[in-house]
């Protein structure tokens, strides 16, 4: 359809005051801003279609921090540790990615990222310090492949260029799938950045532990704080090779592995270990398996078992009907629902 004849482009400043809040508004807004733009009917969430495409599952040898080899350590019977969690808050973020328009085959991506901390008070989860969640609503598009964009739109902080050259100087392909992956990667970065903001704020202000959904290696402040514990549910990278792998898949419910060091490229090192929070008998090898991350502090050896007990305790209540219920803490599910309702 393109830009509708007879409809004048509305001044950007005026529109900026009413930044779109929904995919429908986002589509309509961009139609008014860009000649040749066409709407995508029934824009659907695209994260799942394109996520993890770049991650190849790998096995890595762990750099042990506790002992010489990865071994199982009994922590507690999952049935006896309930209610013994020391986590005072849960941090999670969400993202929603949709193609709302396209210009000559170039997808105009509308991404909403949000993050929040839910503090636990008297067993109930509430917004931490009555703070509203951080929500960002951005357009993601490669400027170099879109003609006719006004400067005001290009310089808007909520319009992200996904067509920039990488560190090696390569520009993304014009292939729509490649452009989508680039957009989604930027959305993930944006999500992580707002999660990091919240996590850093927690570590600066609180003196109790925060359950962070995912890795804590993105921020130096967080990765070195004793008050942030990352819990990773996905295992594209398994820190276990050879005998260590057998030890890992043989972990029983209520057991952890010994600690090892994790230091991803361009990130900050942390201590890490695996915990099996649910029995995996009759299930796949990774059922109920999470990887914990904590700062490499002097007392981490003393705390690792206690933190593991907390993680096991968070297995109740069950986070069904979420498909990741075997690994997901209820507090994280609640935070996700909170973000879904508010962003």
């Amino acid at each position, binding site marked *: 359809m393109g830009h509708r004849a007879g409809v004048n482009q509305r001044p950007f400043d005026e529109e900026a005051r009413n930044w779109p809040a929904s995919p429908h508004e986002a589509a309509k807004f961009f139609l008014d801003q860009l000649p040749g733009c066409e709407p995508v009917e029934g824009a659907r969430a695209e994260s799942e279609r394109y996520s993890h495409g770049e991650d190849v599952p790998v096995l890595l040898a762990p750099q042990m921090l506790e002992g010489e080899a990865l071994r199982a350590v009994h922590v507690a019977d999952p049935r006896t540790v*309930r209610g013994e969690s020391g986590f005072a808050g849960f941090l999670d973020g969400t993202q929603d990615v949709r193609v709302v328009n396209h210009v000559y085959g170039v997808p105009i991506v509308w991404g909403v990222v949000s993050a929040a901390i839910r503090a636990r008070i008297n067993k109930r989860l509430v917004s931490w310090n009555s703070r509203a969640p951080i929500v960002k609503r951005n357009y993601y598009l490669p400027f170099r492949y879109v003609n006719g964009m006004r400067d005001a739109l290009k310089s808007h902080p909520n319009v992200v260029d996904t067509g920039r050259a990488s560190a090696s100087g390569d520009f993304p392909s014009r292939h729509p799938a490649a452009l989508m992956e680039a957009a989604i990667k930027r959305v993930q970065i944006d999500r992580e950045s707002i999660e990091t903001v919240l996590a850093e704020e927690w570590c600066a202000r609180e003196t109790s532990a925060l359950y962070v959904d995912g890795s804590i290696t993105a921020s130096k402040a967080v990765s070195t704080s004793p008050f942030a514990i990352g819990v990773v549910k996905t295992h594209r990278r398994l820190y276990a090779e050879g005998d260590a792998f057998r030890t890992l898949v043989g972990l029983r419910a209520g057991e952890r592995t010994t600690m090892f060091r994790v230091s991803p490229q361009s990130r900050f090192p942390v201590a890490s270990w695996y915990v099996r929070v649910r029995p995996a008998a009759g299930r796949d090898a990774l059922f109920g398996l999470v990887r914990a991350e904590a700062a490499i502090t002097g007392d981490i050896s003393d705390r690792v078992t206690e933190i593991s007990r907390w993680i096991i305790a968070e297995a*109740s*209540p069950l986070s069904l009907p979420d498909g990741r219920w075997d690994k997901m803490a209820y507090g994280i599910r609640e935070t996700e629902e909170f973000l879904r309702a508010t962003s």
Partner: protein
Amino acid sequence: MTEPLGRVVATERKPNTPHEFHFWTSLESPVGIGTIVRVDGSHPIDGRIPHIYGIVVEGFSYTDLQSPMHDVLGHDGSPANAGFSATERAEIRLYSAAVLRQIPEEPLQPVPMGQVFLAGEEDVATALRMDAYLKEGAHTGIPIGVYRAGATDSVIWLDADFLLGPEAAHLNISGMSGLATKTSAVEWLLSSVFTHFPESKGSIAAVCFNVKGPDLCYLDQPAVRLEDSDRALYEKMKVEPAPFKQVQYFAPYNAKGYSLNTLRSNEALTHNVTPLTWGLREVLQYAEVLLNKDDLDAKADALIDFISERVVGCRMERDGPLSRDHSVESFADLEAWFRDLLQGMEAKNQDSWRTHHIATIRKVRNRLINISTRCAGLVTNSGDVSDLPFGSFEDRAVYVVDVASLEEDAQDLIFARIVSRLREHLERRDLGVKHLIVFVDELNKYAPNDTQDTYVRKMLLDISERGRYLGLVLFSAQQFRSQVHRRVVGNSGTAIYGRMDGDELATPGYAVLSPAVRTKLATLEKGQLMVRHPHFTQPIFVRFPRPAVLSGREGAEKFPQAVEVGLAAALYRSLHELDPGVTMGWVKDMIDLYDEHELIDARNVTTLMKPANVRAFFQSRLKKIIPSETVSAGTRPAALKPLPVGDPYGS
């Protein structure tokens, strides 16, 4: 500004409408079924922010749990583990509220999204449209109770124009027996009406029929105990926590006629108990009440009319089968008249008399004479009448007619005649008061919906349909509203519900109430009521105080019923109260001289007339006894003359 306690929500599957909306609250909110709330809309309509008032009629609670099985799995099947979870599941309190009022009232729109507040006192008055009749200078409010929710303590007022006429009228109370609903509510409401009924609307009194136990027998006695909470309610509603100041009791005698047939027979309380006795003339007017449809065919009806008009109170001269003149004033006279007539007809082999067939005469005789037996104690053979003070009813007085211990027929007769008389006087505007409340309990018995038409039911229907124009207001009560004639309860502008039986609540009449409201009705505590009133678009739950009068049970303990006494003691008790000079010895002398029925009749008249000289009056009502004279020697008649000697006729 107060904190909002909830937010309106609506979804496509559960949308808001102009008459219903949904809102959620925090888990700690004081909202419950029956709570009145106010919604402040977010966007103005015609320049005005809409305010919507609603009452909570349904509540929902759920968590994010998709299946109960998930909870079982989450706790390894052990309920004991459930309490130890580090986190409680996210939980919602979702309420549905029925709209009471929207401001502005036009355009009537679905309830908008907005914040929900607990209704304060002013909000409650607005929501229930009480503001229309609580205006300064035109205040016609009668407090029925206090609505409580959170910190709100708001008096709920009924509109006198809609409770006592002329706009609407009548009150019906439903509730389980023994749970301080019906009698207590009426006692409280009468106090409230007597206190707050506007002077400008004239005088008001109440006639209460005590149909069971001692419920209404101690209205002039203070309650044994009133809690501070009750006193606070009285104070809040500006009603004095005191028994009724003017109460008069009426009860017929028992079958023997010795004493009054009432539980209020303790000597300390008999000062305001008046006998209720009627003669032939009074009963005959309401013979229809005591005769069933089979008895009352056209022929019998015609004969009864004839007797009423041409026999009772008239002099019937010897004529045809009648062997002597008759003056029929009492049941005894009527029986003598019937006997004479039938004997004469038999002797002359007559089939009919003045077009009335002998069989009809026999049937009517049987039924009418039977009345004095069935209503013994109420109906006097002598024809003396002791009645309610028709024509001189006093303002704010309660007249209790105790029929609790009477046979059903006698109860019906009393009810029919008294209500008819009240109606007649109100029509003529000469009752003594302008408005009269008639309280009848056990409406299931008097106006059932599943039996043939009775005189009493017709009368109740008549009051409920036309009474308000006369100032005759029916306060009725029953256990099962569903079993009362629809027009009687339907015409009650105001309805009160106490704790209800589950079976009763399952009947179609309660289908308009939400399941939650029905559940609340089934579990109401003592002192709580649900009120429907023409101004309220939805029923409201209120609390009312314990009546400030002695309850029936406590009264029966404090003032035990006088023991059944013999004739001498009964006469002594009645006459001694009128004249302390009456002694038991004097009474016994009377008993030695006169027949029992004669003494009782004399006692009844004396009690009724309250003469200055009790003994002389009493004796004047007894047949004269000619004292025997002693023959002295000096006055002996002269001896007969001796026969002449040689008298040829001498023996």
